[in-house]
Structure formats: C-alpha cells, structure tokens
C-alpha cells in the first residue's frame, strides 16, 4: 500500500508539474491572454481637430497600419459638457473592456469647474502616452521678442486691454493665463474659443494678442512665419533640435522660467479604461500602446508636436495623476474657478 501511496503521490507531483508548466505556457503564450472580441471604442472627450483628437486618430492610424489589434479601434468624439459626456460614458461602462479614453486636462478641470460627478479614480489608469507642452505665442508681426517684453507691453497697455485667446473656459489655457498674470502682474482679457486650431488662426488674424496653444495646434502657422514662440511653460527646454522654421527648432524656444515667468504646466495625454476591468485587459492595452510608441511614426509625431515624452505606467502613472489632481485643485481654487457648492 505504501508503495502505491508513494506512486500516487509521485503521479500527483508529476501532474502538478505538468499543470504548472501548462499554466506557465498559457500565461506567456499570447494566444491565451485576453484580447478584444469586438471593435474597441476610443473615446475622445473633446471635439474633432483638437490635440487629443489628433493623437487618438493618430494612434488609430498606427494601430491599423501595423495591425496591432485584431479588432478595429474606432475613434468616437464625446466632447459635450467640456468632456463630461465622454468621461461619464466610460465611468458608466463598468467592466466593459472594449472602451478606452484619452484624457486631456479636463479630466481634472471639468469636475472641479462644473461639479459634474466624476473623478479620475472612477476610471482605470492604463498608460501615460506623453505630456503636451504649452507655448506662449504672439503674432509674428508684433514687435515682442521675449516674454518679458510682451508682459511689459500688456502692463503698459492697462488692465484687460490685451486679449489672450484660449480653448474653453476654466480649463488649462485659462489656468495658465491666470498663472501668467499672477507671475507678471499683467492683466489680460481672456477670450474662450471652442477649439485649439481655431485659437491659433484667431491669433494669425490678430483678433487676439497672444495664445498659449499646444505646439501641435500652432506648428503650421509657426512654420509659415505667421506666429512667434516666446517661451515654453516647462522647466527645461524641449529636446527637438531639427529646424522647424527657417531659423528655429523647438529646442531654441526658451523656457518661461528663464525669462522670469515662473510658470510650469504640461497636459496629460494618457489612456484610461472603464472601472472594474481585469488586470489582463489592462495589460493588453498597455502592450498595444507600447508597440505604438515604438513605431517610427510615433516618434515623428512626438517631434512634430514637440511633446514631452514622459510615458509613465503602472503605479508611477497613478501617483502622477493623483499629484496633478491636487495641483489643479489648488490652481483652480486660487483662480476662483471651482464650482459653487
């Protein structure tokens, strides 16, 4: 009997070993991991043509070109209520792995400014794709060469005489405007528009005096010599040394800090999923996005839009988002942008 018992236990051990091996194989073999079973909706909580929309459509293009997903990725714009429509949609799709959302700063600003009930904690963080820069732009026909010259001119003109154009109200552009005002003592009249591309064109047409457009929103007008970049709202200058205009590269744009305008602001371009999705499902998209970021097209896109290529994942990403939420809370409280309770 003892022999048999021994034998039995040996068989059992063997079985366990085989099972474990199979299990291990299943974990590594991509065929066994979770994959989408139908088309994946890529929600853009903003209108068409803006920075987030451009990035989402670009990711869609790269995914399709390199066949990175077996199921199609479909971009859907849900920009109603300053993006609340998109966020609430994803928040409401609990456990649905076929929905991802790209964020912009309205992830923080919209709930704070409007009181619409959602928070980044309602979503599942997947991956930070990049940080978008902000640049202080003026029309190339104006005489201002530095941020200081410009803010001095604004001060000299008198409070509210010079106009700053930006996207939306109580969102990133206006937050930066308020920060600039506080640092320099200048006072702008802030004119809100619906989209970033429109803002850049309004500056070319001299309907406003300056903007804080993202690089990608204004790059074409810059290349055409219509706009001048005064400074970038980051601690370090942008790394891209290829000439964009006849004389300047992104790296030639000084930091605002070096110009005595101590304002530092970048915008999150990150991907989130619906709440309650499994780890496998998150891992799948992390994998796909990693492959996207390795393509030459992505690198070119990053350079064209002068993005800050910080791409945090996992816990670091969560920590970063939490910190950024705190920062927006205090920035917006100072500016008086919080919704009345």
């Amino acid at each position, binding site marked *: 009997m003892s022999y048999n018992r021994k034998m039995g236990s040996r068989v059992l051990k063997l079985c366990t070993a085989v099972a474990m091996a199979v299990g291990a194989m299943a974990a590594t073999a991509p065929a066994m991991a979770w994959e989408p079973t139908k088309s994946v909706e890529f929600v853009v909580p903003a209108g068409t*043509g803006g920075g987030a929309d451009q990035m989402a459509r670009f990711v869609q293009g790269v995914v399709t070109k390199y066949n990175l997903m077996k199921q199609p990725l479909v971009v859907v714009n849900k920009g109603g209520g300053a993006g609340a429509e998109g966020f609430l949609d994803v928040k409401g799709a609990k456990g649905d792995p076929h929905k991802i959302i790209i964020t912009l700063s309205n992830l923080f600003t919209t709930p704070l400014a409007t009181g619409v009930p959602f928070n980044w904690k309602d979503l599942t963080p997947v991956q930070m794709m990049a940080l978008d820069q902000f640049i202080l732009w003026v029309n190339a026909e104006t005489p201002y060469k530095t941020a200081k010259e410009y803010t001095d001119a604004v001060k000299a003109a008198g409070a509210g005489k010079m106009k700053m154009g930006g996207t939306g109200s109580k969102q990133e552009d206006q937050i930066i405007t308020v920060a600039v005002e506080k640092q320099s003592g200048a006072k702008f009249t802030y004119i809100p528009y619906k989209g970033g591309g429109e803002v850049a064109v309004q500056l070319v047409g001299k309907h406003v005096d300056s903007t804080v457009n993202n690089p990608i929103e204004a790059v074409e007008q810059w290349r055409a010599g219509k706009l001048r970049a005064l400074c970038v709202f980051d601690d370090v200058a942008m790394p891209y040394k290829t000439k964009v205009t006849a004389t300047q590269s992104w790296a030639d744009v000084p930091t605002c800090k070096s110009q005595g305008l101590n304002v530092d602001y970048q915008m999150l371009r990150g991907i989130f999923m619906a709440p309650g999705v499994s780890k496998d499902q998150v891992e799948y998209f992390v994998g796909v996005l990693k492959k996207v970021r390795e393509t030459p097209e992505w690198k070119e896109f990053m350079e064209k839009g002068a993005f800050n290529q910080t791409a945090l994942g996992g816990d670091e990403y969560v920590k970063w988002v939490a910190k950024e939420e705190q920062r927006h809370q205090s920035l917006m409280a100072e500016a008086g942008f919080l919704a009345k309770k």
Partner: protein
Amino acid sequence: MEEINSLLQGFSVAMTPYNIGLMMVGVILGVLIGVLPGLGGANGVAILLPLTFSMNPTSAIIMLSCIYWGALFGGAITSILFNIPGEPWSVATTFDGYPMAQNGRAGEALTAAFTSSFIGALVAVLMITFTAPLVAKFALKFGPPEYFAVYLLTFCSFVGMSKSAPFKTVAAMMLGFALAAVGLDTVTGQLRLTFGQTELLKGFDFLIAVIGLFGIGEILLTIEEGLAFKGAEAKIKMRVVIDTWKQLPKYWKTSIRSSAIGCWMGITPGGATPASFMGYGVAKSMSPNGKNFGKGEMEGVVAPETAAHAAGTSALLPMLTLGIPGSPTAAVLLGGLLIWGLQPGPLLFQEQKDFVWGLIASMYLGNIAGLIVVLTTVPLFAAILRIPFSIVAPVILVICAIGAYTVHGSMFDVWLMIVFGVIGYIFKKLDYPLAPLVLALVLGDRAEDGFRQSMLMSQGELSIFFSNGLVGTITVFALLMLFWAPMKAGFNKLRGR
C-alpha cells in the same frame, strides 16, 4: 496661367482608371452616409483607413474627399422622399422637396437637388482654383464680431418670411434658442439648464430634434391621413432627369445667388447648414415665385442645395490652408491628411503641390462622378415611394431610431426623438412653424458665443459690431434683410397706388 498648368497636372494625377474607381467607391459610400441619419464621416474613415495605407496619399485623399461629396449629395435623398434630413444641411431642402415628392414629383425634386448641388460645387471649385490664396487671407479677417454678424445675417434673411401667426413664430424660435442653450456655456464654463441631469450635459443635438420633428412628425401626420404616401405615381423613368434639366435654366438667378451665398458662407466658416437656410430665405424673398415656396416649388429645392454644396466645397479651403475643419465630415479629411504626414496649414499649397492640385482636380472629377452616380439612382429612389406605407413606415421608424442612437450612442436620444416627433406633429397641426425652431437650434449657441466673445473683446461695447468695414457691412446688410419683406410690401403698395 500658373493655376491652369497646375490644375492640368492635377488632372493627370487624378485621371487614372485606378483613381476614378476609387472615386466611385468613395461617392457610393458617401451617399450611404448621407442617406442614413446619424452616420457621420468618422464612420467612413473607420472603413477606409485600412484600405488607404496601401495607397499613395493622393489616391487616398481622392477617395476620402469623394465620401465627402457623396455625403453632400446623399443628404437630400431622404429629405425629399420622407421629410427626414439625412444631414443638417438638407433641412431646408425638405421645405419644398418633400411637398414636391408628395405631389408625385419626387424624381424631379431629386434631379433638381443633385444638379444644383453639382452646380454649387462647381462654382466653389472654380473659386478655389483661381483665388485660393486670396480667399485664405480673407478668411483670416473673421473674428468673433464677424462671426456673430454672419449668423445675424442668416437669421435675418430667414425670419420675417413665416406665414404663421407672429407670436407662434416667435415662440417656436425662442424654443429653439432655449434648446440650443442647454449644456455647457463656452464663455463661462457653467452648465446651463441641465438641472443636474447628466443626459442633458451634451445639450440637444440638432439631428435628433430634426429626425423627430420632421421625420416622426411627418409619419404621424401621414398615418392620420390614412396610411398612404401621396407620391405613389412618381415617375420612375430616366427621362425625368432630362425633363427636369430642361426646366432648370429658368432658375439661373437663384443659382447664381445661392452659389455666391454658399461660397461666402463656406469661407467664413459659417458652413453648409447656415448657407442652405440663407440660400432658401434669400431666394424666397427675392424670387417672383417666393409666395409659392413651401408648397413644392422647384426653385425652393435649387436654392438651398446650391448654397449647401457650394459652402461644403469652399469650406475645404480654410481647412487646407488654415487647418480648421468646418464640419465633422471635413474633420475626416483632416484626420486623413494627418495620417499621411500632411499637416494642413499655410504651407501645404507650396510644399505639397502635387497633392493639393490632385485634390482640387479630384474635386472636379469627384463631383462629376457623384452626379452620375446619384442621377442614375433617381428612378430607384423615386420607386421607393411606390412601396406601400405599412412596409416603408416601420422601416423608416427603425432608421430614425438607429439614426438618433448613433449620434451619441445613447438611448436617451432615441426617447428624445420620439418626444420631438410628438411635438412636431402637434406644432404642425397648430401652425407653429418648425423652420425657425430648427434654425435657432442649429445657430443659437454659435451666435451667442460670437456675441459674448465680442463683448469680452470690447468690454461690453456694442459698437464693436460696426468697428470695421467688414463687420459693419455685414451687420447693416443683416438689418436690411430683416426689414426687406416689410419694405418690399410697402414699396409694392406705393407702386400699386
């Protein structure tokens, strides 16, 4: 002339059998998108994206732009046949197109709509070919006060022509404005009229209101009158195309006016929808047949369709030169450009000559292809009206439900559509006009944004609307349009004496 040479070069790029085949595919897809309410250009990209990577950018953009032409053509079809505008810019086409179909003249209405669309587009493409740089510069002159003045002009050219009781017209229009105000206020970032309902955050979508008010409302009216479409005797022969063409030259004045309005509205990013309303409104007040508008006058189809297509075409110019898409469907093209590494902007015309002129050449060819495709379908579509009502009606209701759902992917919108349907039915019977309501809904928040942005700029001074030649002229023109009808009536009275 340099443009002619470049254009000929462009034609040689576009005129390959391969590219012409792509044009046909694009146009057919576009017509489908245009016919089905709620489907937008983004869906076109979803299908085509995988295909376009194997193509060169010029072929790809030819196909994508043909979707755009197809959608412009296709919007008119359901407007005329069922009073359901497939796209926002074909709302004004329903005003006379649908009565024509009811009188058994669906084929004529469709032919008139398609042909005038084509003419509008042709005028706009000619303008793009020869005046692109100039026009791009002109578009830059438009800031908030100018936008507001343009919207004001649209309202003024349309208002004052309603035959309903004045206070019912006012109530309908204000209802439209109130609906347009729901959602987030651009200027202050506050939520308005949402009453804490998350469904209301995104505001009332124009398409849902229109599908309900016009489409469902019309079905209810038809049911009441005994379950029959009146267009059963619609001619279904190709001859109808030739016969209609013989009548069209009569309306040359309207065509010229509407083309001008369309080009103007397309460049000043007013877009195709306001252009179609304005084209209709202006034709109604200027044409000798004006008083018959709304009863099935062919001129009432020609006017909005010419203007809409001219605007839709010329709207591509600011997109190419400035990088702002004038409509969701134009955003599709923009998306396409970006994927091939072509960034629209002031330099596109210099750096990507082949591409730009290939695109312009394809505008000519694509529209011709589009016209041929849609004209051959005229008998087919006219024949749909021969299908008995109790088969067509449920299918239309299904299409309406799908259309309302796809706009935002929300069931709430489908319920809303039904509510709008009941409102449409009651309003129609009580003689509340629907057109001012719809116009206010589509332009209300944009006009308000323009006004309040202007006020921010001028710090509350209304004089900003007369602050330069451009905005002053438009404002004065708008006020003239407002008082045109009473002035004309007064003038006629004087002359009569």
